[in-house]
């Protein structure tokens, strides 16, 4: 589950093989420390009782309305089912990051932080692969995954999303400001249907220039 040095270099902004030596050394050191990273989990639930409301660009799942906004709505218009998901890298990596920062070792804290982000994305990719395989057995396809807080979808709607995981085994909790704990966690939805497709992210339609997913390569 742990990403390689090159993937981490890329996540930090470097071209592979160009990060300075102390950074690559630290990546290796921290990766060895985290080799047994407990607590990486992912969970999804598929809902077929859904309705799409084109006028409002909303999706209704079992009576709960999600205001996903135009960019996401345009990607799920042909969806027949919706999978809601939550994933986490577990508490350890976030705690290690915080502790290192508090002790003044900001670079180490940053490396933990980047590893945590990559691990949770990797967990979400694996969950997406599993979802794709399961949908394929029924002659269906999947869309990209979309998360509250991105592509115009208000992060506060994460509270609604979590209401579908009352007994979540991922042990993720939400603060009133919709911050997930453990911090290295993601949640969201994926569309499923016979006529949906996986596309590159529609970053050109979005005005959030600082988005961490901006122009990120998609994994089909």
């Amino acid at each position, binding site marked *: 589950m742990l990403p390689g040095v090159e993937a981490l270099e890329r996540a*930090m*902004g*470097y071209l592979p093989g160009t*990060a*300075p*030596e*102390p*950074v690559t050394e630290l990546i290796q050191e921290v990766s060895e420390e985290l080799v047994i990273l407990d607590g990486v989990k992912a969970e999804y639930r598929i809902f077929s009782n859904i309705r799409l409301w084109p006028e409002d660009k909303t999706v209704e799942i079992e009576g709960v309305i999600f205001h996903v906004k135009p960019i996401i709505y345009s990607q799920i218009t042909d969806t027949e089912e919706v999978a809601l998901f939550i994933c986490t890298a577990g508490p350890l990596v976030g705690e290690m990051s915080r502790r290192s*920062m508090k002790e*003044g070792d*900001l*670079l180490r*804290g*940053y*490396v933990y*932080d980047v590893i945590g982000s990559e691990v949770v994305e990797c967990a979400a990719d694996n969950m997406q692969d599993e979802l794709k395989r399961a949908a394929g057995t029924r002659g269906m396809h999947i869309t990209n995954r979309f998360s509250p*807080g991105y592509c115009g979808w*208000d*992060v*506060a709607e994460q509270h609604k999303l979590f209401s579908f995981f009352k007994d979540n085994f991922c042990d993720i909790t939400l*603060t*009133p*400001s*919709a*911050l997930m704990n453990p*911090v290295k966690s993601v949640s969201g939805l994926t569309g499923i249907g016979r006529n949906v497709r996986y596309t590159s992210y529609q970053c050109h339609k979005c005005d*959030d220039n*600082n*988005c*961490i997913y901006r122009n990120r390569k998609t994994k089909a």
Partner: protein
Amino acid sequence: MTELLERISICVEFGKVDLKSPYPPALKDQQGAFELTRIALDSGVSPGVILEEALIPAMSRVGEKFSRNEIFVPQMLMAAKAMNSSMIHLRPFYLSGETRRKGTFIVGTVTGDLHDIGKNLVAMMIEGAGWEVIDLGVDVSTEKFIETADKYPGAVIGLSALLTTTMENMRKTVASLREIRHSMKILVGGAPVTPEFCVKIGADHYSPDPQGAVEFLKSIAQ
């Protein structure tokens, strides 16, 4: 003396903390920012000169390279660590009042938000630009900002938010600070924050990167 200051500056820019630091390879087994700053002080160079002619130019170059995507967060953190090793020797002069800072900068991530990497980078760059930094940490209440602003009259406030939900708390904090001190300078930043949002909530400046924050402070300190 100029040569010594240049060496300190290079050590800070490239993250050479001390003699033991193996990086950058060209400076291996040479003294770093920590030792050279001590030598400079012992040779009679004033702390103000070390700050103005070695640390500030070094951190300024780091900030500019970061803005141009020539270096990334890790190198910025390495430079900040080297700067900090130099500051270990300089801090006592500031604490005693023998040397003056350019001003005070109070920074924190707004209530409900626990993200701190961006805020820490800004804090380090601003300290490197010669300001006293009061870092209130994360999840900072409006009351805490007000209480600290009362303690440091004339301080500039920096607010950070990484979530769209906590941007609303940023708006409330700015409004409350404006109520008690209308002329107070407030700087905002964070991934979801935009120049438009900055204007809308009545903050004075938005910067997408640490160097922009430093430039703003420089402009108001003149």
